């Protein structure tokens, strides 16, 4: 059987300015909750505009304790607290999700 050719997306399909998806918003909520539960310095950066467009850069370092702390708690931060918040981006690696968006 001959290999089946799979078309690739055009270069313009790549768009870092795309609207932030619910997935990324939820992930930002996760990390905000981790931060709130730990009461530590920012592990993420996130800014949102009212229509859902925004910029986010979330980090979670290799710290299993963070997840342990949120395990027994419920709920994410209300949207009103997410919007317009901004924190500095921490140095170094860890898991992150990033997206940029420009009005």
């Amino acid at each position, binding site marked *: *059987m001959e*290999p*089946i*050719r*799979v*078309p*690739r*997306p*055009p270069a313009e*399909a*790549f*768009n*870092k300015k*795309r*609207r932030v*998806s*619910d*997935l*990324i*918003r*939820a*992930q930002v*909520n*996760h*990390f905000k*909750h*981790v931060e709130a539960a730990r009461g530590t310095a920012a592990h993420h950066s996130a800014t949102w505009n009212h229509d859902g467009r925004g910029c986010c850069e*979330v980090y*979670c370092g*290799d*710290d*299993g304790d*963070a*997840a*342990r702390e*949120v*395990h*027994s*708690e*419920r*709920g*994410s931060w209300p949207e009103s607290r997410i919007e317009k918040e901004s924190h500095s981006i921490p140095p170094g*690696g*860890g*898991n*992150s*999700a*990033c*997206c940029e968006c420009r009005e």
Partner: protein
Amino acid sequence: MLDRTLPGIQNLKHVVVLMMENRSFDHMLGALHAQNQAIDGLVGNETNPDSTGVPASVSPTAEYQSQLDPDPDHHFPAVDLQIFGGVTTAQNPNRQANMQGFVKSYFNQQFNVAHSHLIMNYFTPDQLPVLTGLANEFAVFNRWFASIPGPTLCNRAFAHYGTSFGQVSMDVFYWNKQYPSVYERLLAAGHTTKLFYYDAASSSLEVVNLLQNQPALFGTFQDFLHACSQSQLPDYCFIEPNYTDHDAPDGSGELIACDQHPDHDVRAGEQFIASVYNAIRTNPNLWPNTALLVVYDEHGGIFDHVPPPACTPDGFVAQPSATGTPDAFHFDRLGVRVPAILISPWVAKGTVINDVHEHASIPGTVTDYFIGQYDNRSPREAAASTFLDYITLPAMRADEDCPTFTNE
């Protein structure tokens, strides 16, 4: 009950699950009905009324990108509208799922009648050579449903835990976590398992809930490819696609989102599925003893014609404040149907599976196969159909009988 005497099962060492994002069965595979009547796809005369009452027909004019912007609503209230056509329980306590509310639901986002019709579009097989090729060559599920008529994270929870612990939203802090994840079960039983997220920029949707298990549990997609090349796949692994367009963390270039979540380019997802398949398919030490399931987490608000069936309640209740509807939800009905394909050289070409499956089938199957008797799981998972039962061929298919893909 799985027949463990079958040669394909006796050879089986690895189960791999790739979960993509937000596309319905009819949208991706519905056109296959014209080629194979056993596949419960589209006849072509399916319609939904638009906001003016005019029927909007399904149309083979789906585009890889730019049609489904904004992202179709797939939160609980919208999916309730999509499934029940706008009939509420107050209007009719015995309302029936009719799949007549997709166009109305999409209209609610832009109040544009013409744009709302795009939710009825579907792809032709030639547009999706990977997904339709795999569906034709291996086993396609006619009745694999999302676990909840709601969004991504609660549905993905069923793939990891066999329940969402009462949640129907994107709020995934499992505060009442009485059932361990399938990964924790396997690790405790001495098995190897990994959750491969795409990279350090895309991360994992389960990172918070399962982070306590790192580094034992997590790996990147490059780790997956390396494991395949070294013939060191774990017993069970779950793969997450790239959820964002971003620059490669190592500076090597641009990485396009390949999850197929609207409005990401569907071709990137096709290439990603092909890369996962090829990594297994081209390794003779893995191909004979690996089962790959490609499945989508939920329908993403896109039309499908099959009403979701009732199911075993999982013991939780989401109150109206959580569902966003006048009614509580007892987790007694599945979500909308999604594409699902089982791939193995021990699966007969053209297999069409009609048994009902849902995402709780994933931990259910994996636990049954690798651990056996296991009681600490949700009622939904305990009742869910397993999916290895279709690895039934008496002899492995010849190498030239199984496809390979070349990414352009």
